[in-house]
């Protein structure tokens, strides 16, 4: 079962494509990090997944169904939008009542417990809450409808470090105790590193890499050796980035076969560096063997 399956998915805002040729198959049971610089198309992809937007090209299925097509489909997906919108004039308790009235699967006990634990005053208007409290309220609404998939769009971008940690902790407590998949976006890998086990890197409206983080780390290698042409490497190596000094060449390659050329010194790469390497790739790489951006170090 996949939580998100897209083929040739694209979205155009009049002159500009916000997302192009996005083909993904995200298996269930993961906490998926969607990373990319600002304006890469993360929000567009998540809005397509929640049905807030309709695709210009291609198809997208979420949990096997068309996004937002029916109340049943809506009930299966929880969404916390960017900047965690809430009704400023409604109280915390009103928001819980809203959730109870609009969701058949509403779990009132979970909602109440969370509000109690967060120390939110039920009579407080949402407009008077701090950014962190508002994000927690929005997360509570999304969680208490008991979704199979929780989608969060930059939920912690505007929060202070303490509120970030508390938010992620809430999220982790929820996913640990429930059969739920999560897709959350951020422009900072550091936000996601602790909580995600699956990664999608989106740059300039295209998906650069997607996969389980364990697999990605196992198949990406940082090689250093005597200076040589990046083209003269085995054909099953996908070069993600290459940099040269006068004598040395450093390559980030993706390959599933073992590196047995003794000319290379092999080092493992950290997740953050791996993401940065993909983010700094040229805007429009050809598929397959990637001509890498040359970075002088």
């Amino acid at each position, binding site marked *: 079962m996949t939580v998100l399956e897209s083929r040739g998915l694209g979205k155009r805002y009049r002159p500009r494509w916000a997302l192009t040729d996005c083909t993904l198959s995200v298996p269930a049971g993961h906490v998926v990090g969607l990373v990319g610089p600002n304006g890469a198309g993360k929000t567009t992809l998540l809005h397509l997944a*929640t049905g807030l937007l309709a695709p210009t090209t291609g198809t997208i299925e979420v949990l096997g169904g068309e996004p937002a097509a029916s*109340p*049943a489909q809506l009930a299966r*997906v929880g969404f916390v*939008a960017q900047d965690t*919108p*809430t*009704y400023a004039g409604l109280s915390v308790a009103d928001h819980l009542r*809203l959730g109870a009235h609009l969701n058949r699967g509403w779990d009132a006990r979970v909602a109440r417990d969370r509000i109690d634990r967060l120390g939110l005053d039920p009579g407080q208007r949402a407009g008077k809450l701090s950014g962190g409290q508002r994000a927690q309220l929005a997360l509570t*609404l999304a969680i208490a409808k008991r979704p199979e998939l929780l989608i969060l769009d930059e939920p912690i971008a505007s929060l202070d470090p303490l509120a970030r940690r508390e938010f992620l902790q809430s999220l982790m407590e929820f996913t640990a105790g429930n059969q739920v998949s999560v897709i959350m976006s951020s422009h900072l890998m550091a936000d996601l590193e602790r909580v995600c086990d699956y990664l999608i890197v989106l740059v300039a409206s295209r998906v650069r890499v997607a996969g389980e983080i364990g697999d990605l780390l196992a198949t990406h290698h940082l090689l250093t050796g005597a200076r040589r042409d990046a083209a003269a490497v085995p054909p099953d190596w996908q070069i993600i980035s290459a940099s040269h000094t006068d004598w040395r060449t450093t390559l980030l390659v993706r390959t599933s076969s073992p590196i047995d050329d003794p000319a290379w010194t092999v080092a493992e790469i950290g997740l953050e560096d791996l993401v940065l390497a993909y983010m700094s790739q040229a805007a429009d790489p050809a598929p397959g063997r990637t001509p890498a951006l040359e970075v002088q170090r």
Partner: protein
Amino acid sequence: MIWLTWRQFRGQAWLACAALAVAAAALAVTGLHLAHLYDISGIATCHAHGICQTVANTFIDQAGAAYGVLFYGGIAVMYAVPAIIGVFWGAPLVSREIEAGTFRLAWNQSVTRTRWLAVKLALIGLAAMATAGLLSLMISWWASPIDQALPLAAGPNDHAVNRFTPLLFGAHGITPIGYAAFAFTLGVTAGVLIRRTLPAMATTLAVFAGALVTMSLWIRPHLITPLRATLALNPANINGVANASGGRLKITAFVNIPGAWMLSNQTITASGHTSVPATQACSPSGSFQTCNAYLGTLHLRQLVTYQPASRYWTFQWYEMAIFLALALALAGACFWRVRHGRLS
């Protein structure tokens, strides 16, 4: 969804109820006095004595002195209420959710956005129609003695003011219900299309005013083919003699068909000409009396087109139906846009 709609709307709903209560109290007290003035004026039995114009004029003078401000104020309120509903209930309904981003919260509950919009449009639309309908009922009841006396008070030499008069027509009866439904959905549509509250409010007001003016000036007179009549001209009703080309004279005269909406009025000669030969009697040096006496010998006729008083309610129903149909069309546009359009 009904709960959320009510929760978001209840402040405005209570405000509307309070305003209706205040209006009801003010209109009840003054309306009973007005009805009393009408009862003692003798208008009800005036036909038997042939004194209708006199007693009706007395009553209109009395009512005007006591309640003229309230009468015209009521008309102003009846036009203002649909406009206010469109601007303050309609325009922000969706645009405020777009501006605050809360539609993303609302549309990700287990309720389709079509249902979300349908409940909001239906409940608040009905509230809008009920508000305008109740207010119009009160004001129409209040003004009914004046509406009844106006056609009687108008002499043959007066410009007929009656409930067909464009300003009065839209302020009494059932047309305000159609106006309110139209203004509300117009506001919602403007909000959905423009996506910002203030410009949507301004657009709503401008388009609503334009629609009312267009309706009353250019469309309403033609909703039903007017009646045509050729009436013998009473020289006493002549109010204008003007030089026309070819040394001829053009005659204009009042005509009054009680309670009717006069659309056109042309003076013609027995042979069908629209002007009469110039004569010494009607030269600038001659007197009005000699001229009128001369014109009286010509057996002039008046060709008039008009909508008779009996068509008043037919016109009211037509106009309400037209605006309800427009409201439905706009609601359809909102649904289409919310389902297929990009709001963010």
